C-alpha cells in the first residue's frame, strides 16, 4: 500500500503536465466514443447516487433560522439598520420619520456637490457633479434618485468599514486570510436568486434587505484592496514608525493606513460602483427608487422611460466614480502653521454657503425645491418612438434575423447538443484534462471534485446548459473585446473613450437591454448570449487596454530599435507581456458571465437560472441552495484554473 502511495506521485511527476493531460483527454474521448455500449449509470449518474440534498439543506436552513435563533440576531441588526435608513430617507426624500427635517431641496444638493467637485478636480468635475443632479431633477426623477441614494449612502460606508476591518484582520493573521478567500469567492459567485429569499427572511423586505444585499455584494474588493495595500507598505516607513515609539493602534492609524491610502481608496471606488450596479436587482427585495421604477416601466413595455432611468443611473455612477478617483489622486493639502481656520476650510465653508443660499432660493421659488409632475422634461414617449424606429429598420431586422438563424442552427444548438451528449464521466475527465494541462495534479483534482459535486446534485444537464451559455458568450466576447482593446490602447484619446464606454456598459442596468435584445433576436439563446456578451466584454476590453499600456516603455523601445514592425511588436512583445493582466480580465469576464447568465432567466432560458426562478414560487429554499451551489462551483472551477495560469505565467515572465 505504502509502496503504491510513494510510487504514484513519482510516476506522474516524471511525465510532463501536457503528457498526462493528453492521456486524460484520450480516456475522455474513449468514454465518449463508447457511449452506445456504456451502461446508463456511466452516462448519467444513477438515481440512487443523487441524494435528497434539497430537503436536507431546507432542514438545515430551518434549524439555523429558528432553533439556533439566527433570525433574532439578524432582526436586531435590522432594527438598527432600519433606524439609520429611515433617517437618511427623511433627509433625502422626506420619509415620514425622525428627524422630520427633509427633504432637502434639489438645488442645495446641486450647489454643495458642485463645490465638492471643484475642490476635488476643478471646473470639469464641478460641472459633472452639479450637472448630473440638475439632469436628475429636471427629468423628473429627483425623488426616485434620492430614494435610491438614501440606501447607498448607508450601504457604501458600511461596506467600506467592514471591508477595511476584515482586510486588516486578514493582513494581520494569515489564518484569517486563508479562511476568508473561499468565503469571498463563494459570495461573489452565488447567483443573485439565491440571495433573494434569505435576504428577505433575515433582513425584512424593504430598504434593509436591499442594503444588506448591496453590502455583501460590495465588500469583497474592499477587503482584497485593503490587504493588498497594507502588505505593500515599505519596511522603511514601518521602522520609522516603530522608532518613534508608536503603539500598535498608532502604527495602524498613522503609519499603515496613510501609506496604504491609494489601494484603500481604489477599494472605496469599487464599492461605490458595485453598489450602483445592484440598484435594479435589489429592487426585487425592496430597494426603493430608480430600480423599482425601472422594473415597473419594463413591465408595461415603456422603453423610453426605462432608458432615461438607465441614463440617470449611469450618470450618477460615473459622477461618483470620477469624484472618488479624484479623491484618490488628491494628496492632502499642507497649510502653513497659523493660517486661519477659514482659510484651511475654505471649500467646506463655500459648500455650506452654496447649500444655504440655494436652500433659501428654493424656499422662494418652489421649482428649485421640487420639480412638479408636469414640469419635467421627460421625453419618454419620444425616446420610445426612436428606439422602436431603430429596431424596425429593415436592414437591422434582416441582419439580426440572419444572425438568429445562423447562430442558432449552425453554432449554438449543435454546441449545446454535443455538450449534453457527452457522458458525465467523460465531461468531467475532459475538464480535468484541461486543468491538468494548466496546473498539474492538484488543479485536476480540484476541478474533478467541483464538477463531481455538480453531477451529484442531479442537475447535470441544466448545469451543462448554463456552462455552454457562459462559454459561448465569453468566446464571442473575446473575439470582439480583445481586438477592441488592442485598437483602443494605441492612443490616449481612444482608450479614454472606450474606457468610458466600458464604465457605461457596466453600470447601465442590464435589464434595459434585455428588451431590445428580445425584440431583435426573439426569446432564445441568441438574445441571452447577446445580453451576456455586452456585460462580459467590459472587463476583457478594460484589462486588455490596461495590460498593453502597462508594458514597460523600455521593452517596446527595444523592439522598435530591433526594427520590428508594428505587428511583430504587438505579437511578440506587447501581447505576451500583457497576457497575465488580460487573463485577469478574462477571469472577470467569466465571473460576470456566470452572474449574467442567471439574470438572463428574465429573457427565458432552459438552464439553472430558469430552475432557480422556479424555486421562487413556493419558496423552495433547499432546492434553491442546491442550484446556487452548482452555479457557484462551476464559476469557482474556472476561477481556480485561470488564477493558477496567471500565477505561473507571471513568475515565468518575472513580473511578480
Amino acid at each position, binding site marked *: 500500500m505504502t509502496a503504491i502511495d510513494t510510487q504514484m506521485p513519482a510516476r506522474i511527476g516524471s511525465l510532463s503536465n501536457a503528457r498526462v493531460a493528453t492521456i486524460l483527454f484520450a480516456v475522455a474521448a474513449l468514454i465518449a466514443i463508447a457511449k452506445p455500449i456504456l451502461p446508463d449509470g456511466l452516462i448519467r449518474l444513477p438515481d440512487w447516487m443523487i441524494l435528497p440534498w434539497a430537503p436536507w439543506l431546507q432542514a438545515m436552513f430551518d434549524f439555523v433560522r429558528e432553533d439556533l435563533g439566527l433570525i433574532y440576531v439578524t432582526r436586531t441588526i435590522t432594527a438598527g439598520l432600519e433606524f439609520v435608513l429611515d433617517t437618511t430617507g427623511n433627509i433625502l426624500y422626506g420619509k415620514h420619520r425622525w428627524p422630520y427635517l427633509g427633504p432637502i431641496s434639489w438645488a442645495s444638493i446641486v450647489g454643495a456637490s458642485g463645490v465638492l467637485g471643484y475642490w476635488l478636480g476643478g471646473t470639469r468635475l464641478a460641472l459633472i457633479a452639479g450637472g448630473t443632479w440638475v439632469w436628475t431633477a429636471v427629468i423628473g426623477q429627483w425623488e426616485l434618485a434620492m430614494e435610491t441614494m438614501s440606501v447607498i449612502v448607508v450601504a457604501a460606508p458600511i461596506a467600506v468599514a467592514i471591508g477595511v476591518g476584515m482586510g486588516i484582520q486578514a493582513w494581520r493573521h494569515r489564518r484569517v486570510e486563508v479562511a476568508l478567500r473561499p468565503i469571498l469567492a463563494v459570495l461573489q459567485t452565488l447567483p443573485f436568486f439565491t440571495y*433573494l429569499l434569505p435576504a428577505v427572511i433575515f433582513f425584512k423586505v424593504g430598504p434593509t434587505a436591499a442594503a444588506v444585499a448591496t453590502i455583501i455584494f460590495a465588500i469583497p474588493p474592499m477587503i482584497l484592496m485593503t490587504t493588498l495595500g497594507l502588505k505593500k507598505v515599505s519596511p522603511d516607513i514601518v521602522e520609522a514608525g516603530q522608532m518613534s515609539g508608536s503603539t500598535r493602534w498608532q502604527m495602524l492609524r498613522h503609519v499603515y493606513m496613510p501609506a496604504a491610502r491609494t489601494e484603500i481608496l481604489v477599494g472605496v471606488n469599487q464599492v461605490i460602483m458595485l453598489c450602483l450596479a445592484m440598484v435594479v436587482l435589489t429592487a426585487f427585495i425592496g430597494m426603493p427608487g430608480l430600480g423599482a421604477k425601472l422594473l415597473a416601466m419594463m413591465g408595461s413595455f415603456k422603453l423610453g422611460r426605462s432608458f432615461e432611468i438607465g441614463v440617470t443611473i449611469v450618470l450618477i455612477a460615473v459622477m461618483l466614480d470620477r469624484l472618488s478617483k479624484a479623491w484618490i489622486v488628491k494628496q492632502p493639502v499642507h497649510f502653513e502653521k497659523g493660517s486661519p481656520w477659514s482659510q484651511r476650510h475654505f471649500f467646506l465653508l463655500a459648500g455650506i454657503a452654496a447649500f444655504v443660499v440655494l436652500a433659501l432660493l428654493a424656499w422662494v421659488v418652489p421649482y428649485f425645491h421640487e420639480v412638479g409632475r408636469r414640469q419635467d422634461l421627460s421625453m419618454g414617449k419620444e425616446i420610445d418612438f426612436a428606439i422602436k424606429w431603430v*429596431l424596425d429598420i429593415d436592414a437591422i431586422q434582416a441582419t439580426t434575423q440572419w444572425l438568429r438563424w445562423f447562430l442558432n442552427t449552425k453554432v449554438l444548438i449543435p454546441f449545446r447538443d454535443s455538450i449534453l451528449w457527452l457522458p458525465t464521466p467523460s465531461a468531467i475527465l475532459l475538464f480535468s484534462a484541461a486543468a491538468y494541462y494548466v496546473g498539474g495534479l492538484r488543479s485536476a483534482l480540484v476541478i474533478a471534485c467541483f464538477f463531481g459535486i455538480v453531477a451529484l446534485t442531479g442537475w447535470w444537464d441544466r448545469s451543462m446548459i448554463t456552462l455552454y451559455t457562459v462559454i459561448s458568450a465569453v468566446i464571442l466576447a473575446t473575439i470582439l473585446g480583445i481586438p477592441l482593446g488592442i485598437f483602443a490602447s494605441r492612443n490616449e484619446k481612444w482608450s479614454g473613450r472606450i474606457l468610458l464606454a466600458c464604465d457605461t456598459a457596466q453600470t447601465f442596468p442590464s435589464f434595459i437591454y434585455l428588451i431590445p435584445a428580445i425584440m431583435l433576436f426573439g426569446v432564445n439563446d441568441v438574445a441571452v448570449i447577446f445580453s451576456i456578451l455586452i456585460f462580459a466584454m467590459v472587463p476583457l476590453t478594460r484589462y486588455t487596454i490596461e495590460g498593453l499600456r502597462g508594458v514597460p516603455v523600455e521593452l517596446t523601445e527595444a523592439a522598435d530599435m530591433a526594427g520590428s514592425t508594428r505587428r511583430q511588436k504587438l505579437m511578440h512583445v506587447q501581447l505576451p507581456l500583457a497576457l497575465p493582466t488580460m487573463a485577469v480580465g478574462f477571469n472577470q469576464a467569466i465571473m460576470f458571465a456566470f452572474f449574467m447568465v442567471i439574470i438572463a432567466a*428574465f429573457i*427565458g432560458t432552459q438552464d439553472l437560472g430558469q430552475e432557480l426562478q422556479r424555486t421562487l414560487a413556493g419558496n423552495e429554499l433547499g432546492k434553491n441552495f442546491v442550484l446556487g451551489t452548482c452555479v457557484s462551483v462551476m464559476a469557482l472551477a474556472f476561477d481556480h484554473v485561470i488564477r493558477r495560469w496567471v500565477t505561473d505565467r507571471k513568475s515565468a515572465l518575472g513580473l511578480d
Partner: protein
Amino acid sequence: MKNLKHLLGATALTAALAMSGPVFAEDSKDPIIIPIHNWSSQIVMSHAVGQILESLGDNVEFVTTDSQAVYESVRLGDVHLELEVWEGAFGKSFRDALEKGGLHDAGDHDAVTREDWWYPMWTKEACPGLPSWEALNECAALFATPETGDKGRYLDGPVDWLKHGKERAEALGLNFTVINAGSAAALWAEIGAAEKDKKPVLVFNWTPNFAEAVWPGEFVEFPKWEDGCDKDPAKGPNADALYDCGNPAEGYLKKAAWDGMKDKWPQAYCVLTKISFTNPQIAQMAKLVDVDEQEPEEAAENWLAENEGVWKPWVEACPS
C-alpha cells in the same frame, strides 16, 4: 371627564352595533406596509387602497418586492397585505404560505382573471380557424422559428407562474414547442417585435392587463376547464393525460392579509376585507398609467376622485 365621554360614546356605539356593524379599537399609528410589484394595475390599486387607508388616519408605506417572495414577507409580518393574488400565477406561493401560517385569505375581488394562450388580432388573418384550439395544428408552420424547425412555437409565461404549457401541448397532441419567457417584459417585447410585419405569434397573456388596450387580441379556446383537470387524467378530452383543458376562464383574484393585521389595525383590516374591484375598474386603473402616462400616485388619486361611489361604501361599512 374625557374618559366619561369616551365611555358614553362607546356605549352609544355599542348600542348602534346591531345596525351598523362592528366597532373597532383604534388603529395603530405604525405604518401599514403595502407591497408593490412591477405591473401597473397592482401599483395603482395599491396606491388607491393606500390613499383610502390614509383617509381613515392610518399611516401607509409602500415597498417594492418580488411578486412570489412577497408571501413569505406577509407571513413574517414585514408587509401587511397583498392586493392581487392571482389564482394562476401566485396560487402556489399563496397556498404554501397559508399552510405555514401567518397570513390568511382576506376575500376575493369581484374581478375574475383569465390566463391562457393568446394571440394578437393580426394572427387571425393568417390562421382563420382561430380561436378554436383545433386550428392550431394546421397553422403550426406559421408559428415556426429557426430554433423550432417545422414545429410551431408558443411562448409561455415565466416558469415561476407554473403554467404547464408543455404538458398541455403534449396532452392535446399539438405540434408546438413550448418556450418559457423569463418575464412579462419578454412577452411584450416578443409581441412588439412581431407588430410591424404582422407576424403571427402565440404567447401567454392574461386579463385584466394593459396589453388589451395596446394590442387587441383573443384567447385560444381550449377544451373547457373541468375541476380536477390537473389531477385526474379522465377529465378533459385526452383520457390519459393531465392538463388537457384550458385554464379556468374565471380564476380568482384575492387579497391576502397578515394574521396580525386584524388586531393591530382593526379598521383598516375591515376595509381591506370589503374591498372588491371589478375587471373594468382594474383595466381602467392600468390604463391611466400605461396609456395616459400618469404617475401611479396621481392615477390613484384621480381614480378615487372619480369613483367615490365605489369605495366610500367600503369605508362606511367599517365605522371607527
